[in-house]
């Protein structure tokens, strides 16, 4: 599903975030990216979602070389990836339902179908009944789950999450991780970047460890 071949990422500041990184994630697999902050976890996720481009090397996602995805192709490419952010990235002036529906609206799904799937997605993350709330009326954990519902509503084959439990207390964090596990159980490939080693042990999945831009174990 994902293959990094000798990928180096150097930012315009001169910092080398990734140095000749190679690894692969199989379809249907669940993988944790771990390491200290600044080890390169976020850079890997950004390269997968085409938010950044590799300085050298190749990133393949779902059989496609991301270097070849350009222009209008970028938007279409991103629709096949569900992304969960540490800071949620929700639209605060729209109700929860609109936030979750966004990927379907972009894909041009009919309104009636959207309403049905929004309810289903909110049900999956335990937020049924919060459709009309504004994101800021929800707790941080609930906002994170709105973000997860948005990431999965279009049924993408790949789900990536950057420190999704960073702001949550341990009980909520475990709940969120188990949610990811459930998506993985139904066939979604899941890549989660986290520094919370304890959680990884509880959920149980392959771990790719990064240190200073290099893969130290996988």
């Amino acid at each position, binding site marked *: 599903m994902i293959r990094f071949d000798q990928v180096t990422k150097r930012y315009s500041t001169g910092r080398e975030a990734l140095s000749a990184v190679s690894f692969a994630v199989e379809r249907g697999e669940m993988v944790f990216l771990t390491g200290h902050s600044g080890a390169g976890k976020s850079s890997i996720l*950004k390269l997968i*979602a085409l*938010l*950044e481009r590799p300085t050298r090397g190749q990133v393949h996602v779902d059989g496609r070389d991301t270097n070849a995805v350009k222009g*209008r192709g970028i*938007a*279409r*490419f*991103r*629709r096949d990836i569900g*992304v969960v*952010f540490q800071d949620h*990235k*929700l*639209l605060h*002036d729209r109700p929860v339902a609109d936030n979750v529906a*966004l*990927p379907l*609206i*972009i*894909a*041009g*799904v*009919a*309104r009636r179908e959207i309403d049905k799937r929004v309810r289903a997605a909110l049900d999956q993350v335990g937020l049924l009944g919060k459709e009309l709330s504004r994101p800021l009326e929800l707790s941080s954990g609930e906002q994170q789950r709105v973000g997860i519902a*948005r990431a999965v509503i279009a049924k993408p084959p790949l789900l990536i999450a950057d420190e999704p439990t960073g702001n949550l207390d341990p009980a909520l964090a475990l709940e969120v991780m188990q949610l990811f596990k459930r998506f993985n159980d139904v066939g979604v490939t899941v890549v989660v970047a986290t520094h919370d080693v304890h959680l990884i042990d509880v959920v149980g999945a392959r771990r790719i460890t990064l240190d200073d831009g290099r893969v130290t174990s996988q």
Partner: protein
Amino acid sequence: MSISAYVARHAQTLVGSLGRIAAHPFEALMTMGVIGIGIALPLCLHLVLQNARELSSGWANAYDLSVYLDKGASLSRAQAVGRELQARGDVASVRVIAAAQALAEFREYSGFGAALDALGENPLPNSLIVTPALAASTHDGTVMLRNAIVAIPDVVTVQIDTDWVKRLNGLLDLLKRVVVLTGGLLGVAVMLIVGNTIRLDILNRRNEIEVMKLVGASDGFARRPFLYSGLWYGLGGASLALGLVAIAVAILSNPVARLAALYGSRFTLKGLDWQISLAAMAAAAVLGWVGSWIVASQHIRAINPS
């Protein structure tokens, strides 16, 4: 995507963008006000032009010739000349004005009564007013007619009143160009105003655009609501402009009618016809759309999520 879903999506964006404009009524009114005044100006000029044409086309006697006889020629001689002219094919009608009658009219309208009394005798000659036949009511036709009349004995001068008609037409043509020119300039201004408003709107909603692009929105999708906003700004501005022009016409129509009555005319000020109103609305909508398209395309492309 089915066609009905596509239409529904556009309709939704259309209404949604209207809702967002309505959420900040003061800012929206300011922008629409500037656009409205910008559109009202060429429309007012157009009205002036249109009414001036209307007014001048009402003067059927624009090509009349004034024929002045020698001071010594009697009234009966004037009537004989009149009969002679009436017999011509290129003359529609002839009116003989006796010197005494001319003096009486002049005394009444000029206010120089006392000065005329001091002269002792009537300084005015007998004269005739000749209206050319319709076929001869052209510049060349009247010049030919004048040459013929000048050749008649006792005729001293023939005046054709076409010069001022030509001057007026020249002036109206000039005014027409001014209308087109100001229209063009202010059209560009409307685009710039809408563009600037949309630019601020985009900066305010940068976050939202970023999030939309993150979850796979194309630039076109992110741009669409702004295009509709531009459309609404244009339409709103044009509506205000039509309102402003209507108010101006309402304020001016009574004084204009009174002034016209003083000149013995039944002229009344005419407002914009529906074709021009419709054209102004359509033009403003297109300008708003294009203005926001230029700005939104550039700025939205430049926003990249990170």
